[in-house]
């Protein structure tokens, strides 16, 4: 019974992540790549993403505070964040990166600052939600992850 509840929670949690726009279809692609030889693939990719993206967000913040602003460098940093975010299906983050890039293009510093704050919030929220999701998955075990991931 406990196990069924856990599985239901996982399915519900994942559906919410998609319905609320935190994740897109690309996340399903990651789950399809997980197998017996890489049983923790999705969690490992997510961990790598959050490690790299935290560093990028710090670099972006430092670059924004420099004077004169180097919008080319800012754009390059956000492009990296957009690329990796897109690869894991982090939809809201990817969209906010596009907003940031548009602000860079317009050399709109205030727009960039606002966008950065939003990116940081989306980043923190997604990290927290995925940590909860992976925590539940660990409780059901790798054997049944494949079933959960197809829902």
């Amino acid at each position: 019974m406990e196990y069924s509840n856990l599985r239901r929670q996982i399915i519900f949690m994942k559906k919410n992540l998609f319905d609320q726009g935190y994740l897109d279809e690309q996340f399903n692609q990651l789950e399809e790549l997980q197998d017996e030889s890489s049983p923790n693939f999705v969690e490992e990719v997510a961990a790598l993403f959050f490690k790299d993206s935290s560093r990028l967000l710090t670099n972006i913040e430092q670059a924004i505070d420099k004077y004169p602003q180097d919008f080319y460098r800012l754009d390059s940093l956000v492009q990296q964040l957009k690329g990796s975010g897109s690869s894991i299906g982090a939809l809201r983050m990817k969209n906010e990166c596009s907003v940031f890039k548009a602000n860079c293009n317009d050399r709109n510093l205030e727009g960039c600052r606002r966008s950065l704050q939003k990116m940081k919030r989306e980043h923190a929220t997604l990290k927290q939600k995925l940590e909860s999701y992976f925590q539940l998955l660990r409780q059901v075990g790798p054997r049944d992850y494949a079933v959960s991931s197809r829902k």
Partner: protein
Amino acid sequence: MAFQTQGSNLRALLVEDIKVNRMILSQMLRKFQVETTVVQNGKEAVELFLGGETFDIVLTDNLMPIMTGPEAISKIRAMGATDVMIVGVSVDANSMEEFKDAGADLCVPKLKLEILEHILQETRSKKNKSSA
């Protein structure tokens, strides 16, 4: 999805500077039993070709440090490597034209398993035709 392979393994060169993307694309290629060499920028890719390495398919990002994907593609094609399938992979919509102008066979904004399977099948057919 069943990951099918037919005949001998293809050899791929993956050119990507972002770690997360390298990890995902490598795993995708592994699913199709493709022998994959990974480099982090266009210059490293060109150096492999200059060193006499051959590949059936190159998958490359656009914007990378030191040398971009399109720059590398131009140099690889100029070396006479006209048979190798070259695929540009980039979320940036502006990249498509750059890739094509440089000599890429095709460009995709994201590499999904279904798309990769189709590309690998096409690469395999091309390889079988040229060795016949």
